């Protein structure tokens, strides 16, 4: 949270001017949307008569009613406690999104038939490809960060070339280069290892920078104290420096993990049966693309939310541990 002041002012959404402005803006918005032909037109039939013939009057009437409901909703939520506000606003936004998807007229029977296969095959592959990649990338990142901070010319040159190259190319291109390029050199590589390799190298490069910044943020005095007690370099790094930089490294690393979860969809282009691959192929036969894409989208989203929760847990753990 930001710094919280001790003086509490009225919530913004309870100021008359703000309420009036909100009401006006919502009325204009809903009027312009022209909702005569939708469910709202049907619901308003007693007031506006036959929706198809209601014209501007119908548009305006629906606009005002929706604006009133919307404003009332916001004002009421404004009275609640922080946590309750968060939950309710989340649920409302979620309903809006689901209604949006619902509007596509999806074939739920088809989704129900395929979803288990998507989860068991797709989610499983996506998760293990991402998890292995992030673990390997972390190892690479530690080595890269130490190399980038070292006074050894070779180490610095290799590490900076590495980060420059792999941050500089689109990930999709790296996937192709590894999968199609390595066989040219005589190393035939399977799709899954190729995908993991590409993700590892790419994310290792980004995370090298995260780890470097984390290590550099530890004051020089920690090194001096360690060295003056007789700690060698590796011991100092492992026991003193890295543990202290972890709280700084974990939030951006969690971020990277979430990004990787979704970027792992790029390895579908080389035929790894992960979530995205299944989403594209399962609906192909019967032209039910939307069903599968939306299902996959929701699954990705839920996975990301799980990771967010885990990240929050870990961050809290480190925050409570020191001080």
């Amino acid at each position, binding site marked *: 949270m930001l710094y919280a002041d001790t003086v509490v002012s009225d919530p913004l959404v309870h100021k008359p001017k703000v309420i009036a402005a909100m009401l006006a803006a919502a009325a204009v918005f809903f009027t312009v949307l022209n909702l005569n032909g939708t469910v709202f037109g049907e619901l308003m039939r007693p007031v506006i008569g036959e929706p198809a013939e209601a014209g501007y009057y119908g548009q305006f009437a629906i606009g005002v009613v929706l604006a009133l409901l919307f404003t009332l909703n916001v004002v009421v939520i404004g009275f609640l406690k922080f946590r309750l506000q968060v939950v309710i606003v989340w649920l409302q936004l979620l309903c809006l999104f689901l209604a949006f998807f619902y509007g596509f007229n999806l074939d739920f029977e088809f989704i129900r038939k395929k979803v288990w296969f998507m989860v068991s095959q797709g989610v499983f592959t996506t998760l293990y490809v991402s998890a292995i990649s992030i673990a390997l990338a972390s190892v690479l990142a530690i080595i890269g960060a130490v190399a980038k901070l070292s006074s050894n010319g070779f180490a610095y040159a290799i590490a900076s070339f590495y980060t420059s190259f792999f941050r500089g190319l689109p990930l999709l291109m790296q996937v192709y280069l590894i999968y199609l390029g390595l066989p040219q050199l005589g190393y035939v590589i399977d799709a899954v290892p190729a995908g993991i390799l590409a993700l590892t190298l790419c994310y290792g490069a980004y995370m090298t920078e995260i780890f470097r910044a984390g290590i550099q943020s530890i004051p020089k005095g920690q090194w001096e104290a360690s060295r*003056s*007690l007789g700690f060698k370099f590796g011991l100092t790094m492992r*026991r003193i420096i890295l543990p202290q930089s972890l709280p700084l490294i974990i939030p951006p690393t969690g971020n990277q993990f979430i990004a990787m979860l979704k970027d792992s969809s790029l390895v579908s282009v080389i035929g790894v049966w992960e979530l995205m691959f299944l989403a594209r192929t399962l609906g192909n036969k019967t032209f039910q693309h939307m069903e599968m894409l939306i299902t996959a989208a929701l699954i990705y989203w839920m996975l990301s939310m799980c990771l967010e929760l885990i990240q929050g847990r870990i961050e809290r753990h480190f925050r409570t*541990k020191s001080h």
Partner: protein
Amino acid sequence: MNKPVIEMRGVNKWYGTYHALRNVNFTVSKGDKIVICGPSGSGKSTLIRTLNWLESHQEGEITVDGIRLHEKMKDIDKVRMEVGMVFQHFNLFPHLSVLENLMAAPMWVRGVAEAEARETAMKYLERVRIPEQADKFPGQLSGGQQQRVAIARSLCMNPKVMLFDEPTSALDPEMVSEVLDTMVELAQDGMTMVCVTHEMGFAKAVADRVIFMDAGEIIEENDPVQFFENPQSERTRTFLSQILQH
């Protein structure tokens, strides 16, 4: 004649082109208590940090505990294990508890068993009079307590000599004496000590010799009585009149 614990002969050091130590010679024998003083920027920290080679020197010879310090040496850690160092800003490990701070070096460097390390740590915490803080984290202690923990941390390695670089100058006035008391007791126990400090009371009470530095040079080295009563050099007199004024 006592074998010297530390010996510096004709030491010169440069930071780039800046000549930070000029032809420094001095010897510390076992049991000696030496106080180094001098104006800001005169090279006191630089001098004391070359003694465990946190800073390197370019010319001359430094010998610590019989080992010559030089660029190609394999085992600087062997020397550092025997030389305790206390810093102006404590530099405790904030992610470890007080007890862990004290047990870390003996266990990880000397390979002492955990139970023994704990026992040693408690012994020294009692000596610096804060055994009740053992399970706290450094961030929860006052400055004076942190500095005493830092002293205890060095002592746990059972060093042959202790180096202090302005150990009290980051402390609030009322905490200075608790740290100085600890240092005085340490001196009375016969520890070999090299202290950079402007606490002249401490120098008078425990020092065998006082060294005055200016512009990277040792200007004067004398026993405390002579040093304060009868300073030889003009620069020493100016310095002393400045710090004794307030």
